[in-house]
């Protein structure tokens, strides 16, 4: 349970003391991989935000004469089987990937936080009941569970967000629960109680800030998993519906024509690799800098 003690010694989430930013930079320079990760993530985020302005073509525009073209000056990443510009689709696909990651992480974090606090601070029966549900959800291999959910909900962008949120809630809730349990009998909490503070005040003012820091770092390390899941489901045709460009659908389209033109597959896979690497490197560096004790079992 190394993760349980972390926040007690650290106090409030790091990054709030004066000069912390400078300190952060100094630390980050010692982690070349983390720096690479940060650059990759920034590139991805910026290109996603400004996607509509930087795409060279309309990602859904069909150029009949230029189907499955190899990369050229006009189409840097070539075109797909309908003659759509792959670069434009890749850039717009980044938007979808980040949107899914943001929406599902937001939902999973807030619900997970709430359930975790409840389980950690509430009565015993509630704790046991919630744990049982968490374990039931986690006992399925993720992709199988996701496929089953999609079978019920039908493939769409919202199904993907829902699936990712449902599968990640238990992870966060569990972490919050352990942290809360560890803090529950801490002296300053007991003192607060003795002074007559209500549960809302204890949880909101004292427990929450201490739990939030490590939770956010863990969440940033989960982004690659979410991107993978979204792209994977879309690749199987169970995620984002065409013609919406997603990295997974680009791969799905390209897969059928892999013998004629490998380019859509090569360039559809590349952003997934770069994005997952970027978030992994960045997340590991953040963890090492802020909270070395947070290391998960490898």
């Amino acid at each position, binding site marked *: 349970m190394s993760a349980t003690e972390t926040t007690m010694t650290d106090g409030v989430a790091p990054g709030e003391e004066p000069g912390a930013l400078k300190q952060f930079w100094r630390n980050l320079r010692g982690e070349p*991989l983390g720096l690479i990760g940060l650059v990759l993530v920034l590139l991805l985020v910026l290109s996603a935000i400004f996607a509509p302005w930087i795409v060279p073509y309309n990602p859904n525009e069909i150029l009949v004469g230029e189907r499955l073209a190899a990369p050229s000056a006009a189409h840097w990443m070539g075109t797909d089987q309908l003659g759509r510009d792959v670069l434009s689709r890749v850039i717009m696909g980044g938007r979808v990937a980040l949107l899914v990651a943001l929406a599902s992480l937001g939902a999973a974090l807030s619900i997970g936080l709430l359930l975790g606090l409840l389980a950690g601070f509430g009565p015993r029966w509630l704790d046991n009941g919630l744990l049982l549900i968490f374990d*039931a959800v986690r*006992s*399925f*291999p*993720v*992709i*199988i*569970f996701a*496929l*089953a*959910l*999609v*079978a*019920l*909900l039908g493939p769409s962008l919202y199904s993907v967000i829902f699936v990712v949120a449902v599968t990640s809630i238990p992870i966060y809730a569990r972490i919050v629960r352990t942290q809360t349990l560890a803090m529950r009998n801490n002296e300053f909490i007991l003192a607060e109680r003795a002074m007559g503070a209500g549960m809302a005040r204890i949880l909101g003012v004292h427990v929450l800030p201490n739990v939030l820091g490590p939770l956010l770092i863990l969440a940033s390390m989960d982004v*690659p998993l979410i991107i*993978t899941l979204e*792209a*994977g489901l879309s*690749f*199987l*045709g*169970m995620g984002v519906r065409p013609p919406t460009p997603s990295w997974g659908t680009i*791969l799905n389209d390209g*897969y059928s024509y*892999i*013998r004629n033109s*490998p380019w859509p*597959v*090569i360039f559809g*896979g590349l952003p*997934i*690799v770069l994005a*997952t*690497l970027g*978030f*992994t*490197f960045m997340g*590991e560096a953040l963890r090492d800098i802020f909270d070395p004790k947070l290391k998960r079992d*490898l």
Partner: protein
Amino acid sequence: MLHVMIRAVPGDPASIMLGPRASAEQREELRHRMRLDEPAHVQLGVYFGNLARGDMGTDVVSGRQVTTIVGEQVPHTLTLIFASIAWAVILGIPLGCYSAVRRNTLIDRITGVLSVSVIAIPSFVMALYSLLIFAVALKWLPATGIGDEGFLERARYLILPAFAVGVSWVGYIARVVRASMLEVLGETHVRMNRAFGLPEWRIVFRYALPLAILPTVTLLGVGMAYLLSAAVFAEVVFARPGVGALIVEAVGSRNYPVVMGCVVVTTGLFVVATALADIINALLDPRAREGL
């Protein structure tokens, strides 16, 4: 659990399966056949009762037994998973040993970085890229299918998908072996061996390695979930038969009984694998027995 979800989602499975043009009588008939007209707890009871007798219902499309359909696919998936574990172990353990013995050399550093990055790369991208490189571009290995009868022929078709599934694990295993190897090499009995003047390779392989690979066994159990997920994609990319390919197809055609069957079977595999890993670990390592 899934049953509850099917009930909770709005929409009637019967009308989805029959399509919008089905008549009301047809829908009623199917609802009755699937026992959908009975209360939820009865349905659930019937399902688990049948499951205990090895009956998972019938496929709505072909009318065959789901148990038979899923059962036919399990060996294919298991073969793929075992072959990929073999890949991971064959490449991972020597790499881990090397990194532990030659610490902080260039190769150790490269292995360290590679292991982190390879884990991060999604398995289906790995599968697509290896298909592209080794089958389409280099033409070393066949691209899709499982080949005709015959062990060697089958094995040839297995190499590439297994590699795609297993390669993410090479780094993982190498890292674990390296860590535990370093630990073991620092222990007194190893120092004792050194004092006896045993050659270094003999110490590493004869005395340290058997202890150092213990953690990987438990890892394999835990990683079964990952391997199963990766196998789903590998089966689709390489057009191999298997539980993964089956569930994807069943989800596409909304064939609920088959989807359920696949979920039950894969979850079962996962549980069995985890338990097996614990047992094997206990057999190999007396220290772990107390915890079991």
